[in-house]
């Protein structure tokens, strides 16, 4: 069954098609949710709300543009909505904007660890980092999405990078220490 047909059937509220669509995209969208959330439980909540929104609004999808892009946007919006509801943590922090470099020493970091690092970031840092680095939104877009200034998004991003770098460095040194 092609994606177009599946989408059409979902527009008609056919249960089977909805379950197909879920099967097709839940893994990718769940990864997205994990990155935007603090933990797995929260990510599952976001995923659930996202799919409900997708099925509810699928009629509005007009077959122009990538469907996956559309459902990703819905999911990201849902994730952000969670934090808008909760009230964003106000992080007042003027960090220097500097390049954060890590040595490329062939050290292979696994996904779980990196995901953990992202999830452990303070909420707004995590959102900005995800939006900017992983999902390619501009500072201007992010600023309007999170209702903050572009200056804040930039400094949040820099802080996020710093924290991530620290985590990775610590991790590496520990591993090196062990392997010695």
């Amino acid at each position, binding site marked *: 069954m092609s994606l177009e047909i599946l989408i059409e059937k979902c527009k008609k*509220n*056919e*249960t*089977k098609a*909805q*379950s197909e669509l*879920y*099967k097709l995209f*839940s*893994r*990718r969208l*769940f*990864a997205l*949710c*994990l*990155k935007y959330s*603090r*933990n*797995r439980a929260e*990510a*599952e909540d976001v*995923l*659930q709300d996202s*799919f*409900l929104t997708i*099925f509810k609004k699928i009629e509005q999808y007009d077959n122009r543009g990538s469907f996956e892009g559309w459902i990703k946007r819905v999911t990201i919006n849902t994730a952000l909505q969670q934090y808008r509801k909760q009230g964003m943590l106000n992080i007042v922090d003027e960090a220097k904007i500097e*390049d*954060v*470099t*890590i040595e*490329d020493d062939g050290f*292979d*970091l*696994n*996904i*779980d*660890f*990196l*995901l*953990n690092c*992202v*999830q*452990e970031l303070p909420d707004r840092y995590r959102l900005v*980092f995800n939006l*900017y*680095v*992983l999902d390619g939104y501009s500072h201007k877009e992010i600023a309007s999405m999170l209702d903050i200034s572009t200056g804040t998004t930039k400094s949040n991003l820099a802080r996020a*990078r710093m924290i*991530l*770098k620290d985590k*990775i460095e*610590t*991790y590496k040194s*520990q*591993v090196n220490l*062990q*392997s010695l």
Partner: protein
Amino acid sequence: MSEKQPIDKLFKEKLGEFEATPSASVWDNISQELNQGGGDRKAIPLWMKIVGIAAGIILLISVGNALFNTGSTTTPEQEVVDTEDNTSPDSQESNDILNINESNEPDGNASSDDETEGTIADSETNPEIKEDLREQISTQNKSAVQNNVVENTTGNTTGERAVVGNQSPIGKNKQDKADLNEIPLDSDTKLADKIDEDSKEDGFRINENSKDPKIVNDTDKDPVKKDLTGTGNAVAQSEIDATVKGENPKSDQDTVKKDLTDTEKALTEAATDVEETKAEETNDNIEEAIASQEDGDSDEKEEFRNRWGVTPQVAPVYFNSIGSGSAIDDAFAGNSKTGEVNMNYGIVASYDFNEKLTLRAGINQMNVSYRTNDVIVYNNIQPSVDEKPLKNVNLNAESSDLSFISSNGLNVAQVPGVVAANIQSSIDQEIGFIEIPLELEYKLSDNKVGLSLIGGMSTLILSENKIYSSLQGNQTELGEASNINSTSFSANLGVGMNVKLSESIDLNLEPVFKYQLNTFKDTSGEFNPYTLGVYSGLRFKF
């Protein structure tokens, strides 16, 4: 800017395209929400639509029939007979005449103040007519007018009957609809609950399994890890990661491993693997859950398993004909006819060829009845031996001296001098068949309410054949029709709806139109009988 940041690159590479499997409960919750919000909304309009179509067809045919009949019955010229130049045949005025005549006023016609009466008087009475004669004419007039009135009233009754004919099937449909609305809702909820319980159980079981340390053994570990991480580096690296994590209490916080972490190093290592095994397992689990969901939702898989079905069914069946002819006698070709609704019973066996196509055969007791209105029945003093009073009816002994004429186009001159007996209002024909349907059912959709098209044919074996005359609710058997074939056929076309009540029981509702092909041998005018029935029953699948 992100290009310049190696750390961005690292995260984008690793976290850009990875996938993760949510737990099965997510889909359970989603489908539950969808069912609550969407399921009911969908079921009701579908019912309304289908029942609406069925009701519409019945309404259309009945209304069309009623209109057609009214058109053929009332011809104003016939209302006041025996008055050549009567120009104002108002029915009320005719009634006036009747009243006057009935009150046996000897001067009824003579008191010609009234216009109509004047006309009648002019044409009928000449100076030579004596009182007796006048009375004679008065009687004649009386009978003529009475006939006329009979016609009028029967005309009205016909109208009423037509309306009744319209209403009763619709009424039934409405009731059916109401019943059915209740049933599917109920069963849906039960179904949803059941599925819910099932998947919960599954989810629980599998979570337990994945916590089971037995799963984490060396043979499982490697392939799972390789498959899932997708990164080239395998065991060594992960073990190092795990080791570090074990010593770093920070990484235990809020992580996906929360439920599994023990502070022991070895166990942390296990945890990594458990998590991955769990991911794998939940993947399977969700697929199972979805599969079970599909089982629950789709009839086709279910029916595919249960190929055979038996459906006892009952149906109100409306019988009528297309065309204005009569199956009884030439004389009644132009009369109004009324189709009646009878209850039919039967049983149908079905076999599913595949998910879409079902063959079914069965046996029905099919009774139909049909009324020819505006018939005058009277005792003939000198019964004609050579000619049958009704062309297509073999009269029984008691009725052999009866004569029948249509009150349509009745001319008083034709009525024998002594009209000894009743003026009948209708001839009722009751026909019973053993119907053997052979039909194909093609499934159009199989949501909560399945929709299908039904087409096929029936063999009709004549089992009952009676003709009655009916006056004011009293029926007298006249005999039987001589022109009904002992075996005939019908072409069937219908729409089927079914609601799944349980794994093995469906509730069916099928409005079916059956056009009879050669039921009557020799009809007067165009007489193409059909039936329209709403067959409902429970299909037991096994």
